[in-house]
């Protein structure tokens, strides 16, 4: 069977770097398909879809709310040509009802052990409209090594530098943060993968630099320490979401190759100041993710926050505007108060103001958002700060002998141009 798997394009956050990372959802999903299924993967951010290509069955994998409208269009285009389309992924779960209007089937939940049935139904022309496994999680040990072989590698190399590969060691999140939908999507029970599976997958990845995409590594101290111990011999270098603030944990993380952490920064407290310092003390960089537009944010608060970021010597900052994604506490809260201004999912890119802020007008918040990027990167530009982070990883690699210089012949490529 020929299965074409599509990852729809979306508009990137303004101010973000132009790097494109190899997506994670599609490669994890691909591992759930029987090996005799011939998969063609198209990352529409980097390639053009040829709707006339022959395929038996089409899958559309959507992670972001800002992908769904494009995903629906793609589904319709294929269906017009008489092909069957199944949609899945996080954004399909968040927008299930709307998505089911545009697809032959939608798959909600985690796909391990479930795709044989879906394919069987497809072959017998009895696809169900909805496959709902949202709260019925498969055994975590059944999560196999992601099928990174479906990626066109050359697309994810920027000027000769291979981008990080994405990887996950666990699912579920015990936290339920205000703007986050993960408790709806993956449940609040922390589900770590068996270490032998983690090591097996990490060993199989032909890339020394990774992005560990687990919601937070700070879920279970014993697990976290063991994870890092298992990773030390592999000499990978990686970025991730928060690591627990504990001497032994941070030390093990550093030994295991922690490069930098994405850390939410929500106020100017000593708690945050200390948190950043602690990472730095262990040689771990910090990219702050700064959410603007919370109810308590006044204009002065936002300005103070930006100054604070410079003061605590944050390595990189990514500013976003609070965006009420469906099935988050933010959505329930703002919708309940009639404060959501737009349900155009294309605007849900986190750089648009789609709700009525409490302390200022939407326009003012938008201006402050633009100012935040400008002020933070005024002294040291974003490329320069990225450069410093790259240098940090190269230093670590040089120190443990894992540095590999990219061949000069590859240095002239840019994204999306492929082999030259």
């Amino acid at each position, binding site marked *: 069977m020929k299965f074409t798997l599509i990852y729809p394009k979306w508009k990137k956050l303004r101010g973000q*770097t132009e790097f494109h990372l190899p997506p994670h959802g599609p490669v994890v999903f691909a591992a759930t398909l029987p090996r005799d299924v011939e998969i063609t993967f198209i990352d529409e951010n980097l390639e053009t879809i040829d709707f006339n290509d022959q395929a038996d069955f089409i899958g559309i994998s959507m992670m972001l709310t800002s992908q769904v409208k494009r995903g629906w269009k793609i589904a319709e285009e294929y269906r017009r040509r008489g092909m069957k389309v199944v949609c899945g992924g996080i954004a399909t779960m968040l927008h299930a009802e709307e998505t089911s209007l545009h697809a032959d089937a939608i798959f909600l939940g985690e796909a391990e052990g479930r795709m044989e049935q879906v394919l069987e139904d497809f072959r017998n022309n009895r696809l169900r409209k909805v496959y709902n496994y949202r709260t019925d999680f498969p055994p975590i040990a059944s999560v196999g090594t992601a099928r990174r072989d479906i990626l066109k590698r050359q697309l994810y190399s920027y*000027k000769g*530098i291979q981008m990080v590969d994405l990887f996950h060691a666990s699912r579920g999140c015990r936290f339920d943060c205000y703007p986050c939908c993960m408790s709806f999507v993956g449940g609040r029970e922390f589900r770590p993968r068996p270490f032998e599976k983690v090591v097996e997958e990490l060993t199989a990845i032909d890339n020394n630099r990774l992005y560990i995409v687990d919601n937070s590594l700070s879920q279970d101290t014993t697990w976290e320490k063991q994870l890092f111990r298992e990773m030390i011999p592999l000499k990978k270098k990686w970025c991730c979401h928060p690591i627990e603030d504990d001497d032994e944990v941070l030390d093990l993380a550093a030994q295991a190759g922690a490069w930098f952490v994405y850390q939410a920064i929500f106020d100017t407290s000593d708690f945050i100041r200390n948190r950043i310092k602690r990472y730095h003390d262990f040689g771990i960089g910090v990219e702050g993710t700064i959410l603007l537009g919370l109810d308590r944010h006044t204009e002065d608060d936002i300005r103070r926050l930006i100054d604070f970021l410079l003061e605590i010597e944050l390595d990189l900052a990514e500013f976003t505007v609070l965006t009420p994604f469906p099935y988050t506490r933010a959505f329930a809260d703002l919708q309940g108060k009639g404060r959501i201004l737009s349900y155009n999912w294309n605007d849900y890119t986190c750089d648009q103001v789609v709700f009525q802020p409490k302390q200022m007008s939407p326009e003012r918040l938008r201006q402050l958002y633009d100012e935040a990027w400008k002020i933070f*990167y005024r002294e*040291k*530009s974003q*490329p320069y700060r990225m450069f410093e982070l*790259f*240098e940090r990883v190269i230093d670590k690699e040089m120190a443990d002998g894992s540095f590999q210089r990219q061949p000069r012949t590859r240095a002239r490529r840019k994204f999306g141009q492929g082999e030259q």
Partner: protein
Amino acid sequence: MIEDLILKLKKEIIEELNVENMTPEEIDAEAPLFGEGLGLDSIDALELVVLLDKNYGIKIQASKEGPKIFRSVKTIAEYIQEHQEK
């Protein structure tokens, strides 16, 4: 002469960093290298570090003296000159 060094550096940057559609004359020696100006990015900066090491035997650490040196082609040239005179 620093002017000669600046010209040489401009040629090396165009060649080794593959700066498209630009001649040495079009590069303002005092314009910022990153963002607006020459528009180099983080990967170009890594190449620049390699270039200075390879062609001039100069090792620069981004986080320490980097921001001052990597301001413009002129500041790089000044640093090279100063360093090589020592």
